[in-house]
């Protein structure tokens, strides 16, 4: 039995495809999964995390054939002999739920762990799985504390204005023990008020509504339930927007009874068929600490005559010390790049020098060029004289002229930067050419773009026109 199946868990990584929100960073050649974070594709963070946790057998789902091809070639090149990865291509724009629907036939284990491919975190996935098993839940979601001070905490002054906007995080209601999910809504969708179900509130009697938590898109699902929901509700597109809220909403009037495995005593319902075994399971239920689901199922008078069907939706709240972020926007992209070489540098997998930066031995620095802390300089990159790099990531084989300032920026591979440029808070994709004395502030420059000499841009997105 392969280790990942030892616990009867299957791991599915949803790597997405060509994400519109990340234009112009993504392109046909660089799908979202392969966007470099500290010079490593973002997908590698999830895969490394799973590998560290002894999960070696997984399914990676990529939207779009070309994206799947490039992802699969990268994975097989990097993780050969280490991970056993199946890459599945699904049509574009099917959504996360659709993606799972498409690989339905491959899901065989008792529970499925669904991880978003753009997750950069150090929360052990086992913890989510364990919480899931502990309560025998139908779904368990990983919640992590939303970045409180906003992405501007390390002084990337340029990003400040954007970051000051109220975060698009979730409104989440929990029970007093902080183990069960009672309500979830995306923060952006909430306008003035949220509607909470009375029945749930009555059953729990106390509810804690929080807005400082973020859904990290790591879910453990009970496979049979997930497949049921996906098959019955064909309109469901997204796990986050449709499936999870549906399961949470219906937790006290469970409709998932088609196969009879989801009752609140899932483990014992099989036994319950044999009459002689009802008693032990009842005894077990009586002596174990009941959750509000069980109390509700028993009815107000505590008699088991009218058993209401319930299922449990659990949460695992990551410790505050854990790092957890999703690469789902351009802002997040620069934040994660900054954090991975900064506050969360244990994730990067590099060993930092005494100056707290990484300069590849093959990189060439001109005279009087300084590379500050929390910087990465990829192999084969050359820098001219009197340059200054602060809190930035510079990719491989870049050629940077003299007198260039790079602050809080991400520069991908094979970028040519002319003399006297100043780059602040920007993202510059591969093969971009910046001619002399370009000044960029909070800009994104798409792959292959050429910025003419002496131009100055602020908070703009520069990309080649899509050829029809």
């Amino acid at each position, binding site marked *: 039995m392969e280790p990942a199946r030892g616990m009867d868990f299957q791991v599915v990584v949803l790597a997405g495809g060509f994400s519109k929100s990340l234009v112009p960073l993504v392109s046909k050649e660089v799908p979202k999964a392969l966007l470099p974070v500290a010079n490593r594709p973002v997908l590698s963070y999830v895969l490394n995390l799973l590998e560290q946790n002894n999960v070696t057998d997984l399914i990676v789902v990529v939207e779009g054939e070309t994206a799947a091809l490039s992802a699969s070639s990268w994975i097989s090149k990097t993780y050969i002999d280490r991970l056993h990865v199946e890459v599945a291509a699904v049509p574009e724009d099917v959504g996360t739920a659709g993606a799972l629907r498409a690989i339905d036939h491959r899901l065989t284990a008792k529970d499925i762990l669904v991880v978003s491919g753009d997750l950069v975190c150090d929360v*052990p996935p*086992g913890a989510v799985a364990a919480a899931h*098993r502990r309560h025998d839940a139908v779904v368990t979601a990983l919640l992590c504390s939303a970045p409180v001070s906003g992405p501007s905490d390390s002084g990337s002054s340029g990003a400040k204005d954007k970051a000051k906007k109220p975060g698009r995080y979730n409104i989440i209601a929990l029970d007093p023990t902080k183990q069960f999910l009672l309500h979830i809504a995306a923060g952006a969708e909430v306008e003035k008020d949220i509607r909470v179900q009375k029945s749930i509130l009555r059953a729990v009697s106390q509810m804690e509504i929080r807005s400082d938590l973020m859904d990290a898109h790591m879910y453990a699902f009970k496979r049979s339930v997930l497949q049921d929901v996906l098959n019955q509700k064909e309109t469901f597109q997204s796990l986050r927007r449709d499936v999870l809220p549906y399961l949470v909403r219906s937790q006290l009037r469970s409709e998932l009874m088609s196969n009879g495995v989801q009752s609140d005593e899932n483990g014992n319902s099989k036994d319950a068929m044999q009459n002689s075994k009802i*008693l032990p399971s009842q005894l077990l239920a009586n002596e174990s600490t009941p959750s509000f689901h069980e109390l509700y199922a*028993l009815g107000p008078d*505590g008699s088991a005559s009218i058993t209401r069907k319930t299922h449990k939706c659990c949460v695992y709240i990551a*410790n505050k010390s854990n790092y957890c972020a999703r690469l789902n926007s351009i802002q997040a992209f620069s934040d994660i790049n900054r954090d991975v070489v900064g506050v969360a540098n244990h994730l990067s997998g590099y060993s930092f020098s005494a100056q707290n930066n990484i300069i590849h031995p093959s990189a060439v620095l001109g005279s009087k060029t300084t590379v500050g802390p929390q910087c990465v300089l990829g192999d084969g990159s050359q820098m001219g004289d009197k340059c200054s790099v602060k809190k930035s990531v510079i990719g491989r084989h870049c050629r940077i002229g003299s007198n260039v300032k790079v602050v809080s920026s991400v520069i991908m591979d094979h970028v040519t930067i002319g003399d006297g440029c100043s780059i602040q808070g920007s993202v510059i994709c591969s093969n971009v050419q910046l001619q002399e004395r370009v000044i960029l502030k909070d800009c994104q420059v798409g792959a292959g773009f050429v910025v003419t000499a002496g131009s100055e841009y602020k908070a703009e997105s520069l990309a080649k026109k899509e050829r029809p």
Partner: protein
Amino acid sequence: MDPRRMPRTITDPKIRQVGFFAPVAPPDVSMLGPPRPTTPSSPVSGNSLSPVMIPPPRHLSSDNVLLSPHIAVDSFLPVGSYNASEFSSSTATEDFSEDNFSKDSGWVLNENSGKAAVKPNTHAASGLTPAVSNEGPPMELQKQQPPASSMPKKEQTTKAERRALQDAQRTAKAAANAGGSKKSISASAVVNSANANTKKVAKAPPQKKDSSSVAASEKRGGDRQTDKDRKKDAPHPRMQFDDEDRVEKAKKRSVVKQTESRNRVELFRHLPQYEHGTRILDLESHFFQLDTVHPAIYTVGLRFLTGDISGGNARCIAMLRAFQESIEDYSTPAEKELTRDLPTKINGYVSFLIQCRPLSISMGNAISFLKPKIPELSSTMSESEAKASLLSDIDRFINEKIILAEKVIVRLAVTKIRDGDVLLTHGSSSVVEMIFLCAQELGKQFRVVIVDSRPKLEGRMLLRRLVGKGISCTYTHLNAISYIMHEVTRVFLGASSVLSNGTVYSRVGTASVAMVAHQFRVPVLVCCESYKFHKRVQLDSICFNELGDPDAIARVSGKEDINYLNDWASSQNLQLLNLTYDATPSDYISMIITEYGMIPPTSVPVIVQEYGGEHLLI
């Protein structure tokens, strides 16, 4: 025997009201041989004619007339004693370690000292009856015991002895530095003074002398050797957690990383106590790494650790069900035999569960029921047949030992409830709950008082269920026990275990309830399935107990304003003690209701001997 026994004679009429009758039990259950400890009798072990074994008196006083109103029919019966050989030869794996036993006997001996000295060789097996000469401290006796079983002997070197030895070594060294010739004399002189008493009574065993003159390190090495041997034999579940050496080794073995909590109470250092929160975190995050543990076992272990499953029967059933699942999924690896490979798997699971939470005695009994079943499987059986046989064995155990036993207990106990009774219970016991429900169904008119205690407040769930069934209840906390006891006519208690000296080992607080009830002359009925009986003898709640999460008593949920102890761990002067169990002395218990009938606590050894052990295995 001791003063606490005194009121018993007075309360006896009350017990009569309740009545001892034992439809299933053998006729001699209620007959007690009067304790006549003065006769150093032959050990009881193996003597099948004398099933009754009662604990010996602590004091060899002549007041045994006061005892038992029952007529001593079997006066020829040998008196039970703290029989070393009997206990140490036990097969059950979860038996207590020898060190403890010797400690126990040490205490008893202490009280016994002052009796005439007997030649030790003849009576060593019967443990305490041979007494020491007056000036001999109690521990000296252990030295006199001939090495009947060599392993425990080495363990029995007490601290005082070792220190004496060390001193001897030190002085010897010093002497050697001064002048070689003096060395042996001075060393032996010190040893002599240390072991003076020993020599007076009997000559010290030869190896004792050797070890004293040889270097101490060598002796240590020998000790370690026996330690290793012992560990090979059976990993000891009852580890002494104040023994740093062993704790270190256990840590290396363990799957789950455990951080020992600081600020442990001095008296309870020998019990395991870990930082609760970090253990859960660690266990959770290693979900995918623990691939040697079956998922069902893992889930059960996690739920033990988090406290989702508590209560003796529930834990036992949950564990057995998890074993069933793991056996179902088991397939014999190539070139291995099921009868050899499966036990090691099960052992691994058991040690995993122990790491999650120490096993209760009932679970230990269940495991020692299950384990011998595996080698018994005949080799001609196919794998599926063998698995089916094991599964049905477990099913049978659950059904007969837990479910049916509870039904019988309920049937018996219900006869003790009369109209107008006020019944008191403590905590939440599954059997007691069933008794109440059954009495309700029979149309008896009664009221229930549920006494609860922090931090678990298990009684609330019981209260909820009973009130839901329409039983009129009173809910109070343990603090009010002396007030509420006035109106109570019967006390029904559950038990985690019943030990062979009649001690009831149960949820902490039970002893206080029983004591108060006894003081108020209210009969105390303990309901306990016989699979929870154990032949161990326990006199206090210190030697074996379980420490709960200290934070649980420091924190009051829902009352943030009174949580003064939030950072208690940082204070050096503060230790919190959250005991899980306590031992109720048999004096406070009027009757124990088992599936074999209603018996006085003194008859527990009968059940243990006649129906326990291999008979437990159905």
